[in-house]
């Protein structure tokens, strides 16, 4: 069998090296990047389409690596992983498409720029396919380093501190993860996710930790949680995010919010819940409070921002807050209560769908922001705009679709996933669900405000000649928006594959 997943991970890495060699020839570097991104997109789409319906791992690759250390090269994807691959491929392609060769970003060391983006993509692929801690962590870190440099070298004014803050926060999270998994290895002798999950399902993991290291499994759970919570982020570990998203070059922000933030949610689903479901159940209440806080406060913070990038940065926190809410809500003993199981399934379906939707929508919104930015000369203050729908109707129309998707308008993709989440969370944790509805309302208000302030109202003199989208740009965005629409109308396209995975995951979880 072809090592499809390895090839998928290797393509961007090799293309990155090639782009680096292109040096200052921006067009060539971007061309290489585009080719790589398109081919990975096709390949990951093929992976997605050829997934079985069992919900178990497919495309498994295993090879001995360092047996004495429990290190094995072990890859595989299920519905969750494959969806994330698809999302990463889409977002990367959008980011590369948004980095136009004549822009300021790509004109400084373009070879390096595209190489780093491709390396980041390689890191994403590796993270979403790895089933052994060793190389999972390798790719987890690998995605961090290029992100840092992309912000550091191509970011806006004030990028230095932002990049450092981003790096420090995520690094602290990584170290917590590393320590926790080292402890797990000492207790179990394995770094393999499936082995560890199996032990957790057997109920033998906690005793193993207890006997080797003492009663620290709760601490390990919190360590793992911290690693992922920073990445998503969960309040109060979010403070790096607004500065980072707003200072990063916009294509990078697309990657950060569209794909990298999903690494955190993915980690919670793949690792935190299966391994430490029992421990998380113990601290479910505080976690739910934090998740609710993330939803509501994220939305509220978005409401008071003046800068469009910051508004959507906080809005991202809010949107992923729903995922966290659902994940923490389902962390409770099920027994054989079918109603609870049904709610869990709905919530989890919603989470996975929300990951994909938010990735798509947020990346699209930031893509539009990058257009706005390049046309306005870098200023994204909300007060700077008004009445744009007159000079640029297509721009406003298309961006409107993305905004409404983000708002959760029925008929667009955002609605389905948020609905599923609330449908699942409500029976399991009605109070947080109720409070979180507040977040939905505020977000709606924020997005409507944006639409109103930017698209309508009086048109300032300077924007009289605001250029509309070119046909090329429309061509880039049309498929994405179309996808939003299709998913809004036929969510079954994704859910059909995700649902077996969810059932499979839930079947293995024991609290």
């Amino acid at each position, binding site marked *: 069998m072809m090592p499809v997943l390895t090839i998928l991970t290797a393509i961007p890495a090799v293309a990155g090296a090639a782009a680096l060699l292109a040096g200052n020839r921006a067009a060539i570097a971007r061309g290489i990047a585009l080719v790589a991104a398109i081919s990975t997109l096709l390949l990951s789409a093929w992976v997605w389409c050829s997934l079985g319906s069992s919900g178990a791992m497919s495309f498994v690759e295993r090879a001995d690596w360092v047996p004495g250390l429990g290190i094995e090269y072990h890859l595989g994807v299920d519905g969750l992983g494959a969806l994330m691959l698809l999302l990463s491929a889409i977002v990367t392609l959008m980011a590369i498409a948004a980095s136009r060769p004549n822009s300021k970003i790509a004109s400084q060391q373009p070879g390096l720029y595209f190489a780093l983006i491709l390396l980041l993509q390689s890191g994403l692929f590796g993270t979403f396919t790895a089933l052994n801690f060793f*190389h999972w962590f390798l790719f987890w870190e690998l995605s961090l380093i290029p992100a840092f440099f992309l912000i550091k070298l191509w970011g806006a004014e004030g990028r230095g501190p932002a990049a450092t803050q981003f790096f420090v926060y995520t690094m602290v999270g990584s*170290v917590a993860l590393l320590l926790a998994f080292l402890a797990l290895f000492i207790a179990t002798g394995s770094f393999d996710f499936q082995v560890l999950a199996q032990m957790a399902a057997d109920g033998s993991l906690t005793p193993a930790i207890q006997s080797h*290291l003492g009663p620290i499994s709760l601490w390990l759970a919190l360590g793992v949680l911290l690693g992922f919570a920073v990445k998503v982020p969960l309040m109060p570990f979010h403070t790096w995010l607004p500065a980072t998203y707003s200072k990063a070059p916009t294509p990078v922000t697309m990657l950060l919010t569209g794909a990298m933030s999903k690494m955190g949610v993915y980690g919670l689903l793949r690792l935190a819940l299966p391994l430490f479901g029992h421990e998380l159940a113990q601290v479910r209440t505080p976690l739910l409070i934090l998740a609710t806080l993330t939803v509501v406060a994220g939305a509220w913070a978005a409401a008071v921002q003046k800068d469009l990038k910051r508004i959507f940065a906080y809005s991202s926190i809010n949107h992923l807050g729903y995922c966290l809410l659902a994940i923490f809500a389902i962390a409770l003993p099920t027994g054989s209560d079918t109603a609870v199981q049904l709610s869990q399934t709905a919530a989890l379906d919603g989470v996975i769908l929300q990951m994909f939707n938010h990735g798509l929508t947020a990346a699209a919104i930031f893509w539009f922001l990058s257009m706005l930015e390049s046309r306005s000369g870098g200023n994204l203050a909300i007060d700077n705009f008004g009445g744009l729908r007159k000079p640029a109707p297509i721009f406003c129309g298309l961006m409107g679709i993305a905004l409404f998707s983000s708002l959760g308008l029925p008929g667009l993709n955002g609605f389905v996933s948020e609905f599923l989440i609330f449908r699942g969370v409500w029976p399991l944790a009605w109070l947080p669900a109720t409070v979180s509805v507040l977040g939905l309302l505020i977000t709606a208000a924020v997005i409507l405000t944006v639409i109103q302030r930017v698209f309508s109202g009086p048109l300032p003199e300077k924007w009289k000649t605001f250029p509309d989208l070119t046909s090329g740009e429309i061509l880039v965005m049309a498929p994405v928006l179309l996808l939003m629409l299709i998913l809004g109308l036929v969510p079954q396209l994704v859910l059909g594959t995700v649902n077996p995975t969810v059932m499979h995951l839930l079947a293995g979880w024991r609290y």
Partner: protein
Amino acid sequence: MLAYTIYLSFAGALALAFWPKALAKSARVFALLVALAGLGFALAGFIAAAGQGSVALADLAWVPALGIHYTLAADGISRVLVLLTGLAAVAGILFSWYIGDKPGDRANEFFAFFLALIGGVYGVFLSVDLFLLFVFYEIAIVPKYFLIAIWGSTRREYGAMKLALYSFAGSAMVLIGLLAAYAAAGSHTMNLQTLAQYPFPISFQMWAFPLVFTGFAILAGMWPFHTWAPTGHVAAPTAASMLLAGVVMKLGAYGCLRVAMTLFPHGLDPWGWSFLGIDSWRMVFALFAVIGIVYGAAVALVQNDFKFVIGYSSVSHMGLVLLGLLTLTQIGIDGAVLQMFSHGVLAGLLFATVGRIVYERTHTRDLGLLSKLQLGKAMPFAAWLFVIAGMASMGLPGFSGFVAEVQVLIGAWRAFPWFAGVAGVGIVVGIAYTWRAMQRAFFSDTPAVDASGAAIPIPVYEPVTWAEKAGVFLLAGTSLLIGLYPRLLLDQIVPAVQALPHAILTGGH
């Protein structure tokens, strides 16, 4: 085959000592060829011995009356370290390629001392007779003094003298212990394996172990005897720093394992009483090692001289090696040996970047000054090289340091859970100082404007030479290769550690 590494290096050193002045420029070519041949032999020996235990290389009566034999053998640990030495030698010469450009460089002397040092290091790693080991150990120390004092920079005479005296104080301690053991065991043999069988009384081991261990650990940069290391590293010319951090410090750690712990394993036993939880020499030295890890990293965090950052980082990383050894667990010692290799390669790479590629072009190592030079743009090769080397050095997965550090930490977690936690903090600080140095030196936010506010153009520096590039690719490639496929080394290290005397592998639970 491995033994030729020794003879070749010494023959090369001798030939260079009598090198005709007229041919001074060719000295480096000759030295490179010798080093390459040495690396070739090391590699061939390494590959040929795959899957085997200890390979005997030579056994001749040397001073029969004293029971001293010329006995060479190589087990997996030795072979790994010999390979490291070969790499460091080649890389060191590549980064010394500038020596010989000017007539006053005394190139032949430099390379003669260099090869003599290398020969001594090879010898230590291959000796089974303790006397022979000691002879090579001292041979490796002397040339260091001259390399630093003659071709060094900042306070070179001070740094060189301090290093030499520390080393000799350490080796005097070692010699006392060896002499005492030799006399106590009846003076018939200095063979390590034979002596290790001799049941030295516990009371004897209780003083001999700390003495010999400390003697060697001085050279390994163990806190609080580490102070020679940063000054020595800073004073040394690049190639000497590379060798110093790359292989000479490993001699100390190797001696700790091969001599102190093997001969006197019961010196590690508990005293029978404890003070503040410290109940054995093992705990004492583990504590020193942990302090070294954190202290070295913390000091590196506040240095302004770029080379001092790397110098203190060596102290920190060698602390990990010592901690790994003292865990007395299979995995911890595996990790320690791998860390020796890894640090040898990475320290070489870092010193080469900082001391050679950057300093030689900017003529400053002050981070404050470097931060104004926009080196990220002016010298992208050096900048990205440092990023890679720094990431490897901070223990990012994918590079050799990670696998080594993880094993040491696991071993430490089993043996001293608290120390493992503190060492983890040290590693985090390690990330911080590397990051800080990288940011300040290469990617500083300091706006590049002069006093009047006009933008300073990006300075133009000499291009990176082929020799520098070759050295960089050799070292960085090795680190990456080992990081991605640590079995290349572990397959030889693990059985060798398993074959160590049983008393050494009693740690953990």
